[in-house]
């Protein structure tokens, strides 16, 4: 059943022959060297590879933060490589949630305000967005820390606020660049489990960059990148309740 349903659907992300070349002085750095793949809606995908292999570059380009040198990125049927910067901002506001490795919470805002921030960019009223923010903070298990300022929380707590912030806008796609990079292994597992559960529940697409093969194992699909090229793509099925 699931197979046939997936087969019918158009992929939500298509990357075709993607190149990113940085010029450093005289020499050229091929950060991405012809990348091709596609992702379906509702998939949890991990981008794995050694340091400097081009994972972040790929993610940034899919999120519209950087322009490719060559190639196509089609998200939900739209070519984003041709968009202007302000179109890209609009595109992100409407479709994308972003989880950062270094959390990047706004220091002067408390947890609720941080989660509500992207909602305010969408023009959601204060009452409604506060309610929604509280709801998502509960979801990530931070009922008691709602009024804390960003720097009054532990790394794991901050990352959970970051996740709630990415999810609160109910985006179609969530990008996460080493979301657990700064967390210990126990918290890492908790956070990952949480992300996978929520994303599954809401049928969202999650793309996570990691250099840890073990963590990548929790994804439905693993894209292995070495030196700017896709080495292999692995797919595996996971149970929701599976222990990490």
């Amino acid at each position, binding site marked *: 059943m699931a197979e046939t349903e997936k087969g019918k659907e158009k992929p939500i992300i298509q990357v075709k022959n993607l190149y990113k070349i940085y010029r450093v002085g005289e020499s050229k750095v091929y950060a991405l060297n012809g990348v091709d793949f596609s992702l379906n809606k509702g998939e949890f995908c991990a981008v794995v590879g050694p340091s400097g292999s081009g994972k972040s570059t790929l993610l*940034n380009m899919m*999120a519209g*933060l*950087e322009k490719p040198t060559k190639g196509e990125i089609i998200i939900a049927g739209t070519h984003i490589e041709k968009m202007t*910067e*302000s179109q890209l*901002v*609009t595109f*992100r*506001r*409407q479709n*994308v949630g*972003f989880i*950062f*490795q*270094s959390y*990047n919470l*706004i*220091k*002067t805002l408390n947890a609720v305000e941080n989660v509500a*921030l*992207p909602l*305010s*960019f*969408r*023009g959601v*009223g*204060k009452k409604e967005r506060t309610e929604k923010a509280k709801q998502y903070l509960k979801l990530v298990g931070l009922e008691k820390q709602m009024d804390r300022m960003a720097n009054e929380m532990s790394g794991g707590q901050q990352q959970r606020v970051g996740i709630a*912030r990415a999810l609160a*806008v109910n985006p179609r796609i969530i990008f996460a*660049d080493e979301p657990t990079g700064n967390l210990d292994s126990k918290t890492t597992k908790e956070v990952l489990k949480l992300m996978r559960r929520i994303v599954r529940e809401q049928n969202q697409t999650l793309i996570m960059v990691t250099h840890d093969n073990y963590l990548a194992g929790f994804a439905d699909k693993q894209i292995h990148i070495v030196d700017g090229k896709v080495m292999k793509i692995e797919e595996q099925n996971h149970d929701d309740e599976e222990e990490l």
Partner: protein
Amino acid sequence: MRFLDLLVMSVNNLRRRKLRTALTVLGVVIGTASIVVMMSLGIGMSEMQMELMESYGSMTAINVYSDMYSTQNSSKEPAHLTDETIEAIRRMDHVEGVSPLLNVNVILKQGQYVASYVSLVGVNQDYMKQITVGEGTYPVMDGSEVQLLVGNWVIQNFSNGKQNSSYYETGELPPVDLMNDPLYIIYDVDGYYTSMNGGNGDGTPVKPPKKYLVPVAGIVEGGIEDANQYSWSVYTDLEALKKQLKQVFKKNPIPGQPTNKKGKPYNYFIYNNAVVYVDDIDNVKAVQEAITDMGFQANSNSEWMEQSKKQSQMIQMVLGGIGAVSLFVAAIGIANTMMMSIYERTKEIGVMKVLGCDMGNIRNMFLIESGFIGLLGGVIGLILSYGISYLINHFPVAASMMGGMEGDISRIPLWLSGSALGFAVVVGMVAGFLPAIRAMKLSPLAAIRNE
């Protein structure tokens, strides 16, 4: 993004860095206050000058004289101010009213007290309504009877003929009650003095001229301290005066009326001068020229005023310029503060862009911040200006500098405070514009890179 959210965010950002915001605002405060105070001085000076001029006579009035001297030696008849010319002037564009002035010298008498050579002026309604009455009312103006409106300083002229009895010697007003006690008027001044001196040349006594009881309708407003242009004369209805003069002098020439080449009086009245009232200050010049073209002499306060207007405009510009320099310095301060703020918040701005904050919103956020600095500085600066203005006006040193003129030197009209406030906000926003554009164009990638 909603405007209110944007506003709250901007204000919060300013509150985060209180000291820096306060210092930047202080710059704007000083800038605004110096512009406003400087301008208020300029405005005060020019307004005081205007008031001074107005006390010499209305700004829209033109005095017309017949040009006696230039035609004296020529064979032409001089251009006389007659009822006809008055009507011609009345028909001109922009003329609201015109009144001839028929000036005769009379003697006023109450009991022992006599005021000699009082100037009695016959005027019409147009002129009469310019005068403000203090005690009493206006005289009747229907030509029926001579009623007097007495200048508030005329009482000083009364004396009882004894040594050291006049106001100029004693400094005390004579005990004359113009409003309530009967007052007599003598039109034939020459006749009066001839009889007083015991008759004419050959020693035959001459009967004193007839004196007429005259009602006083009112007294021109103003005490014995403040003079205005109506303080020294006595005013009455022109038509009534003409009738009265004809009755008094019968076939004899009326004193003060010119005669023709043969020395005979004209059979109509010729006025010494006339006053023309123009509808607007800007039209005074044109009307004045038209009257001059008719062969009369005309003058008004307009030339004088125009000149002093130009002068005070210059002063205002110079003073405003001095103030503007300090606001310019404040603007640089704002730009600097905003630049600093952007460097500090680079990461935050980047994160916001990654999260989908519209570029225009980011720009507006910075514009609101810098505009708010301007607004805050403008408001405080205005309050300060009012304080300084009050001090200037109430310090005796400053008042004596203006040569003892009455009134405030520093005046802040509403338009000045309004435009100063607007200007401060605009300066803030202009100063914040480049930083705002810079913030808008910041790369979002810079933010998510681990530093």
